[in-house]
């Protein structure tokens, strides 16, 4: 069977859902960041698949958009992990359920 756009879309949907499940159910802060990355990557896969099977691949919209996404994702990861460090230093925990106070 030939691989079509649908295959990629289904795969991307599954991956996105896995990421979402992880983000909604796990309580470890780093795992939540990991799940965010999974979701972003699933979206990237979607973009590239749409570009590949889309009407006008010559324009290279998909890779360009993905490049921007990856740049943003990298920033997000760096910032997120810096925040993890800050939170850990403040609350001495990586369990997000215990991080409840806004002041202090």
């Amino acid at each position, binding site marked *: 069977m030939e691989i079509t756009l649908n295959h990629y879309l289904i795969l991307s949907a599954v991956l996105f859902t896995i990421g979402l499940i992880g983000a909604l159910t796990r309580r470890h802060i780093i795992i939540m960041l990991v799940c965010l990355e999974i979701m972003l990557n699933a979206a990237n896969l979607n973009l590239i698949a749409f570009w590949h099977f889309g009407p006008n691949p010559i324009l290279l919209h998909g890779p*360009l958009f993905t490049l921007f996404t990856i740049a943003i994702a990298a920033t997000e990861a760096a910032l997120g992990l810096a925040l993890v460090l800050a939170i850990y230093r403040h609350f001495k925990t990586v369990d997000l359920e215990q991080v409840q106070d806004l002041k202090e």
Partner: protein
Amino acid sequence: MTVAFYIMAAIAVLGAVMAIALRNVVHAVFSVLLFFSALAGLFILLLAEFIAVVQVLVYIGSVGILMLFAIMLTTKVTGDPTRKLLSRGWAWGGLVSGALLLAFLVPLITQSKSESNSQLSNFNPSVKDLGLTLMDPYFASVGVIALLLTAGLIAAVVAASSASGE
């Protein structure tokens, strides 16, 4: 191509599932690295060679390492069997996610459009084309992204170092 796609897809799903299921955080991060590399393979299958390289370079080379560093700097890496794995109300989260998956899949399966696109058969997108496109029509976006990256970098430094100043 078909076989390669299925193998890559299986690795990607496996990596993602392991990443959210494993108790040991370091194992989870390594499995998400597996997921990233499988995705890079998928990008190569989709002829997005440059994106695959960037995926490897940025995600595996930098983001993964950053995560590992963050783990080393914060928590005990071995899975603590007494620690709770799932958050409160995890069932609701799972339910919502499942519903969302259904919402994604139903239109995909019902409105299946199975003919493939043949436009790319003779087209090999080179890095040069990508670079020229990036620099000519999208120059403003690149500038914005560069600004964002710099801001993010500075913010990360500030966030990580101000806490240590306490």
